[in-house]
């Protein structure tokens, strides 16, 4: 198995093992210290048990010796013995003390020169009673004044245990207790007189320590005040080794600690070096009667053996537990991480779009299996989502396609519709909110002199709106081919849309037909925003119009024809609510006021420039806020033409029938240069005949004025008959029934009937005292 050092398994295992290690280490440390403490207590107990009796014996012995020495020194100082009296006294005393303390080997008196009792020789005076195998004997001695034992006692003026040594006379270890002797002078003063010594053999100490049974290879040792080994089971060490020097070589610090412990405590346990330099536990007891130290020494090897064995067991158990834990952790971790690894691999495949990848099956009900289940769910959800997304992509593409068709069907400029004409200028602008929108516009020429403009907005958004918009536009165009009035066109369109409108959608539309000669616009509105007019002087106003019901709502809807007149230079601006309802981030709409201002500021820009100017103003206003509705504009500017001007001619004749030919001749002369048809001329002549004869016969006027207005560019003639006769409106006369038989016919009213039928327009008005009848005819 390849170990991934950054993997979860490794990290987890490492962390758990680290934790376990810490716990084991703490346990081990605690156990060790507990064991050590117990061992120490045990050793303390043992050491005390072993030491107590022996120390008491030694204390007793040296205490007796010390007391004996003190008593003897007092007696000698008081009694002032000399000569044989002194010798006898010393021998008696020695024998006495040896009866109870056979270790006492000798009693010595050394006088300070000049201080010896009377009868003693001058200078040094020393008497020595000592034990021999043949009995106690007394001898003389000298040269003591410079010895350590003498000077130290004289200087300190009190009893001192001297450092042990190997005796000269008796070859065995000896310790001497020295104490000063005081004599009382004649004046009663206490004076230093000399030193009394008690020599005590300490050979017994060796036997004593050798005989003390100590468990665990331990043994007893006695140290002098200067740490000299004075009793040791081994001869080669006794009086040859100094405990301090051995310990120093091992560890100075430990020895210092030992000295400190000994000086501060009467007894205690010390872990230091044995005389062999090995690790050792030492129980020590400071003696009371002599400043020696009694020690029990256990070499570390033996006393630590127990502790070590316990530690070993503990260590083995720890190691075993550690191993078992390790195995368990590894098993658990890899059990967890293996499915995770396979899941990760599967997730990577999923990430690359392979939705058929196998998700590993994980048994059980733990978190890993839950994760695996979640993965399976995620895969199917993702697959579904991606499939759906693919579908959406397709729809989006189709919408884009629809958008291009839709935009393609709308004419981009006049040249596409063959509407170019010097008498007007026109431009559309459309920005759909989505790929396909419900707005539309259209413009087309109905005939030479009439231009239709339409703007509409199908309800709803997207595809349904686009479909309805396209249908509406096509129906309007088709209907306009055979109908000429704007109301008829809208009504027919409405009928066509309404009768098949099953989805309750509707369309608003505004349609106008501009007479390119006069600037006259007939229009009707199907629930659409009223357009604006930008006048030549820059003022902008909205067209006041009465709107009918929206298209496609009701088959029977009728529309009211209204009209407006554009002066040359005026611009009619059609738009949809996407313009006025363009909204900025603060939810404020561009509004009709904004549009009016923008149009006003567009100055004298032609339609193309004006549309773009308004669009820029809208963009500035919304400032990047999203566009929710199509923005559509259609601007048409009426330019007019000089050819449109009407030439006016006038003739005044008396109201007599015989003047009719001169009228006819006058009109023929006026119209002749225009080159109209013979038929039109003839029909006009008939009309003159009918109207003039009528006036002559019935009005009672004396004179008739005939004005003839002609428009060369459109081949139009407008004749106005003006008379001052009684008011008479021939257009209101009842029309004759032209279906009657010859016998039933009356001939009246037929003349004007013919005029109405043959002229393009017949209009009457009464102006003050005058009748004005105007006929218009295309030549």
């Amino acid at each position, binding site marked *: 198995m390849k170990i991934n050092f950054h993997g979860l398994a490794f990290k987890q295992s490492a962390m758990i093992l680290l934790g376990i290690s810490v716990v084991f280490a703490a346990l081990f440390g605690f156990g060790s210290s507990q064991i050590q403490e117990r061992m120490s207590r045990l050793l303390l107990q043992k050491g005390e048990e072993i030491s107590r009796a022996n120390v008491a014996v030694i204390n007793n012995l040296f205490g007796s010796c010390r007391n004996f020495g003190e008593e003897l020194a007092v007696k000698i100082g008081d009694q002032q013995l000399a000569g044989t009296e002194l010798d006898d006294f010393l021998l008696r005393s020695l024998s006495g003390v040896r009866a109870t303390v056979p270790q006492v080997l000798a009693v010595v008196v050394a006088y300070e020169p000049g201080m010896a009792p009377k009868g003693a020789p001058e200078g040094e005076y020393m008497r020595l009673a000592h034990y021999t195998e043949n009995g106690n004997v007394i001898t003389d001695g000298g040269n003591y004044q410079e010895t350590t034992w003498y000077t130290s006692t004289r200087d300190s003026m009190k009893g001192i245990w001297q450092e042990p040594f190997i005796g000269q006379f008796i070859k065995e270890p000896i310790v001497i207790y020295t104490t000063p002797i005081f004599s009382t002078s004649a004046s009663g003063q206490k004076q230093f007189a000399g030193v009394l010594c008690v020599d005590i053999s300490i050979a017994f100490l060796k036997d004593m320590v050798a005989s003390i049974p100590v468990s665990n290879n331990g043994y007893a040792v006695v140290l002098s005040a200067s740490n000299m080994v004075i009793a040791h089971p081994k001869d080669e060490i006794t009086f040859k080794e100094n405990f301090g020097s051995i310990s120093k070589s091992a560890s100075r610090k430990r020895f210092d600690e030992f000295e400190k412990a000994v000086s501060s405590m009467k007894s205690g346990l010390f872990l230091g070096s044995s005389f062999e330099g090995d690790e050792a536990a030492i129980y020590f007891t400071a003696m009371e009667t002599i400043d020696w130290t009694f020690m029990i020494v256990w070499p570390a090897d033996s006393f630590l053996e127990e502790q070590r064995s316990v530690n070993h067991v503990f260590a083995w158990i720890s190691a075993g537990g550690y191993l078992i834990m390790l195995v368990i952790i590894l098993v658990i971790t890899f059990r967890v991480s293996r499915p995770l690894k396979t899941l990760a691999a599967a997730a990577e495949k999923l990430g690359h779009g392979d939705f058929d990848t196998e998700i590993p099956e994980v048994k059980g009900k733990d978190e890993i299996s839950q994760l695996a289940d979640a993965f399976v769910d995620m895969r199917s959800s993702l697959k579904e989502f991606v499939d759906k997304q693919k579908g959406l992509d397709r729809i989006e593409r189709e919408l884009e396609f629809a958008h291009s068709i839709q935009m393609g069907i709308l004419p981009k400029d006049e040249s596409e519709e063959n509407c170019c004409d010097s008498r007007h200028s026109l431009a559309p602008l459309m920005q759909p909110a989505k790929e396909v929108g419900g707005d539309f516009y259209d413009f087309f020429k109905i005939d030479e002199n009439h231009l239709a403009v339409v703007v509409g907005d199908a309800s709803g958004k997207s595809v349904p709106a686009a479909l309805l918009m396209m249908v509406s536009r096509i129906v309007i165009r088709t209907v306009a081919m055979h109908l000429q009035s704007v109301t008829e066109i809208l009504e027919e369109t409405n009928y066509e849309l309404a009768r098949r409108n099953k989805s309750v959608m509707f369309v608003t539309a505004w349609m106008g037909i501009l007479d390119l000669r006069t600037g006259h616009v007939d229009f009707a509105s199907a629930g659409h925003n009223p357009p604006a007019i930008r006048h030549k002087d820059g003022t902008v106003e909205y067209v006041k119009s009465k709107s009918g019901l929206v298209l496609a709502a009701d088959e029977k809807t009728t529309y009211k024809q209204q009209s407006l007149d554009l002066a040359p230079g005026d611009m009619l601006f059609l738009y949809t609510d996407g313009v006025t309802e363009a909204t900025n981030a603060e939810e404020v709409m561009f509004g009709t006021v904004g549009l009016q201002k923008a149009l006003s500021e567009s100055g004298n820009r032609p339609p193309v420039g004006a549309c773009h100017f308004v669009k820029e103003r809208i963009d500035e206003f919304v400032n990047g806020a999203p566009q929710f509705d199509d923005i559509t504009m259609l601007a048409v500017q009426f330019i007019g033409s000089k050819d449109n001007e009407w030439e006016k001619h006038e003739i005044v004749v008396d109201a007599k029938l015989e003047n009719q030919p001169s009228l006819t001749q006058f009109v023929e002369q006026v119209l002749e240069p225009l080159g109209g048809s013979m038929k039109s001329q*003839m029909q006009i002549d*008939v009309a003159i005949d009918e109207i003039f*004869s009528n006036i002559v016969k019935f009005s009672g006027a004396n004179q008739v004025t005939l004005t003839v207005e002609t428009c060369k560019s459109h081949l139009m003639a407008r004749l106005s008959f003006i008379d001052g006769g009684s008011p008479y409106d021939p257009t209101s006369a009842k029309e004759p029934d032209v279906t*009657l038989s*010859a*016998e039933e016919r009356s001939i009246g009213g037929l003349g004007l009937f*013919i005029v109405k039928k043959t002229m393009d327009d017949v209009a009457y008005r009464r102006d003050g005292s005058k009748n004005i009848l105007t006929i218009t005819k295309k030549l």
Partner: protein
Amino acid sequence: MQIVKTQQDATLTLALEGRLDTLTSSQLDAEIQGKLDGITSLVFDFAKLAYISSAGLRILLAAQKVMNKQGSMVIKNAGPEIREIFDVTGFSDILTLE
């Protein structure tokens, strides 16, 4: 307006040339009024007639009414402009056009 009048037995043919309007209709009226006795066939030749006004129609109507009682009346060679007037005024149904 000129009127060329030819009579053969009981057939009277009137060929009109020019304009038949308010002024000239009296001329035609004079040619017909009281002069149709014995005539069973009245023929108008409009080949050269430029136009006709309601005054002319009135004479034609009066003549047709007379001829309905004593014979027949036919209008020959009417141009499209004149035919249109007849159509508009319903005279096409009253008159016999050839």
